[in-house]
């Protein structure tokens, strides 16, 4: 499926256009919205939540298309790494989202338990689709080539161009060092999501109260470590 390999396209602007076209459903909702509406007709009406189910099926279809393009463009190993990142993000968000709605019902508003579950499944699907796409997008352009092209530019165009290049490079850099940081994280957290030192875990009441602040600190630590490395 070499013809699906976006990164093999020489001209950067064709790559950009194609990537933007692939991203249209995420950015604008089109044509997913129409697909969901047409699917509602197919989904048996006697099923409750026919709308939500159509939405989930549509997102699964879209996710498969995005994954196929990402897989063809970056190869199996990188694709699995991207998926790993996406699943960690997706699961963390969905699980934390459900737990927060259970713990603080006012966040959920008038939604029932089933509706919350479907909402979280949809959120999970969106994340595992968008993250690999975003990683492919960011890494499909060479900052080195951008800077070379800006060599002869002058004035404001050059300054704006250089800052855009720097911004893109910051995102690319974050993606590159993240796997390096996993090694450092593993040294201190061999079980990955549980702290190495957790003797009081589950034995003292304040441990439970500390789990959420600890998880939030972990997210922040990752953000700063990625920027600082």
């Amino acid at each position, binding site marked *: 499926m070499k013809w699906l390999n976006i990164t093999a396209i020489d001209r950067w602007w064709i790559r950009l256009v194609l990537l933007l076209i692939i991203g249209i459903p995420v950015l604008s909702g089109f044509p997913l919205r129409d697909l969901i509406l047409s699917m509602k007709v197919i989904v048996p009406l006697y099923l409750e939540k026919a709308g939500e189910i159509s939405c989930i099926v549509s997102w699964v279809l879209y996710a498969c298309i995005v994954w196929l393009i990402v897989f063809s463009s*970056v*190869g199996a190993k990188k694709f699995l790494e991207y998926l790993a990142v996406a699943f960690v993000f997706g699961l963390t968000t969905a699980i934390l989202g459900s737990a927060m709605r259970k713990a603080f019902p006012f966040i959920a508003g008038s939604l029932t338990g089933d509706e919350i579950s479907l909402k979280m499944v949809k959120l999970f699907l969106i994340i595992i689709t968008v993250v690999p796409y975003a990683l492919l997008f960011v890494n499909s352009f060479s900052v080195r080539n951008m800077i070379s092209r800006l*060599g002869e530019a002058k004035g404001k165009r050059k300054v704006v161009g250089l800052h855009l290049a720097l911004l893109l490079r910051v995102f690319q850099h974050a993606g590159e060092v993240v796997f390096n940081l996993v090694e450092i994280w593993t*040294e201190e957290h061999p079980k990955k999501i549980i702290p190495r*030192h957790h003797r009081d*875990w589950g034995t003292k009441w304040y441990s439970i109260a500390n789990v959420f602040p600890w998880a939030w600190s972990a997210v922040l*630590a990752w953000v*700063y470590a990625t920027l*600082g490395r």
Partner: protein
Amino acid sequence: MESFLSINFFDSYEEQLDHFAKMTKVSLLPMTKGRLAFLGQLGIWFRDYGSEDAPLPVSYILSNPSQGMSFPTPADVLGTVLAMYMDTHNVDCEAVDLLAEFGLDDDKASQSIVSLSGGELLLLNYAKAKAMLPMVNGLVACSPVYWLNKLRYKYWDALLADYTNNSRAIDVALLEGEEFPNHEDCTAIVCGQQTDPKRLRWKLLANNPKVVFPEIQFPSHHPEFSLHFLSEVVEFDLMSPTLVTGDNGIGKSILAKVMAGIITPVEGSIFSLSENGKGNARLILQDSIHQLFGMSVDNHLDWAFRFDGTKANAARSIYSNIEKSLKKLLNEMRFESLTALGEAGQRSTLLQAKICLVAERIASLPPLLILDEPGWGLSKTSAQCLVWEICKQAHDHGIAVAIISHHPSCWDGLINSQIELTKCEKGIINLAMVEK
């Protein structure tokens, strides 16, 4: 030749960086001082990026060679510089030639920067400095040979000659007592003047571990490569502290990560056995400052021990013991200031970061603690005092210590056994004990 070269000595990493900032107008992001300081500096970087007058027209080599590298592969790093004055068609060939000039194989050109060893990164910095030569007035270099094996000092000499022959100034910032080609060592050896750490036996159980790094296709292509660590014996009887040596890029840091359980071997195994039992080692990496993981020094212990009050107290007590002893030792025998230990009541220096990381590891009671280039960023006296104190604390807790270093002379009088890594053929590394 001498007239273009100026060498300055500093007591601490922080003073060295201040000098670097003065000479280049480039400041590093100070994560050890907390996130606000970090974000403030990041903002200044972004604001000044690309402006004509912000950085001075000099090339530079930083004490941590990974910090000067802003592109994903060596070919990109050199290509971006060369494209400023060369025909873009010749840039890639010229980049490969430059890498070869500084002892790096052409397959390194497409390897991800983050997977290069410290020594290889430093050699890449040399190649970048050479590429920048036609566009700059001089070179500012901090500890420019620290991460190199002595056999490779010739590449630094070659870079120095290039700059000197083109009448460019070279400013070298070293830490007190740091080893440097053609320069006399100027500080006294402090080891031996203190109480010896208790002797501790330990065993390295090595069953020919092999690690494989799969092929990478994107964003750049790099083929699969593997490292097989072979040894004639399965059980090495060692006396702590143990020195681990070998050439740049041979796989010392990879071996350390396998021993620490960070990288899982595809075949074979390697474990450590000491008074604390058999298991994986704990590791302080050579660029240890990144192990704070986006935390300030102050916050790191609170974070690591949020769910273990007993160990938190043990770690804090180990931290204060090491810091107190170091302060006392340095005060007694030093002629230099104590800037490496920061201002009173503040923990923000590299030395304090190292003590903090060590305290956390000792409190977890592993069989072995591996210190990868523990002297990086420290003056010779501070480094020796620190490692001496770490050995004392570790041995008291039944933990053996292994030191990975290119500077065996720095640890004279402290080392009780030695392991050497030598390359047999591509991908095969021999592990052997060196008789002392």
